[in-house]
């Protein structure tokens, strides 16, 4: 790929647990095509799954549409993955996401924390009632 050029791959998936694995294999295929190493590919597989889990679990609970979307934007230097749903949205603030507290173990609340930890850059855009978009970036090479 030439410098400054970017390619886009779009995927649209039914809002069902059984297809999250498809998103995971697709990101692995894309990332290995542009030369990411195995460790980074594993990171992205987990991160995209967490975002899909959220789109399914929180995003589309009451919506009809029954699908969510993933955009992959590839350049020579990085892969940007955006997962967006048209669900209820939320007022999640990335700054509020903290490492879990083990004096008070909870079964949930790990997803966004894991995404933040595994990806180089993460952004959330959400408007109550209009859905949520989480954008995450992984850099090729030594990163940021």
């Amino acid at each position, binding site marked *: 790929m030439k410098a400054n050029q970017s390619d886009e791959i779009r995927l649209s998936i039914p809002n069902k647990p059984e297809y999250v694995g498809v998103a995971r294999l697709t990101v692995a295929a894309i990332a290995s095509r542009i030369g990411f190493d195995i460790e980074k590919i594993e990171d992205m597989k987990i991160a995209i799954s967490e975002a899909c*889990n959220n789109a399914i679990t929180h995003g589309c609970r009451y919506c009809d549409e029954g699908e969510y979307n993933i955009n992959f934007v590839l350049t020579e230097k990085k892969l940007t993955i955006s997962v967006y749903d048209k669900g209820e949205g939320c007022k999640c603030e990335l700054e509020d996401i903290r490492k879990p507290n083990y004096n008070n173990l909870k079964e949930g609340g790990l997803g966004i924390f894991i995404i933040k930890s595994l990806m180089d850059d993460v952004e959330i855009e959400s408007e109550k009632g209009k859905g949520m978009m989480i954008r995450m970036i992984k850099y090729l090479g030594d990163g940021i």
Partner: protein
Amino acid sequence: MSLKIKKDFDSKNNYWLVELEGEVDVYTAGQLKEAFKLIIKEKKENIKIDADKLEYIDSTGLGILIGALKRLKQEDKDIIISNIKPNIGKLLKITGLDKVFIIEG
């Protein structure tokens, strides 16, 4: 993209040996939850997970492990995870769960 669970009570060592093979994700997590429920109902003893063939786990699976541990802790029992692959080790470390479960080998 599937999960196989094999469980056996090891009466010599007095723990459950649970072999996980494949992927624990939002699709297969229900299976794991069910297995732990049955195990804990039968006998509240330490659970040792052999993760040698576990290729993938995410927060859905970790949540279920945490849930099971909470129930075991009531009787002072633990979850031991052995033979973990690097990607899973990394996830446990990042989340601090490597200090909550007992990690072996």
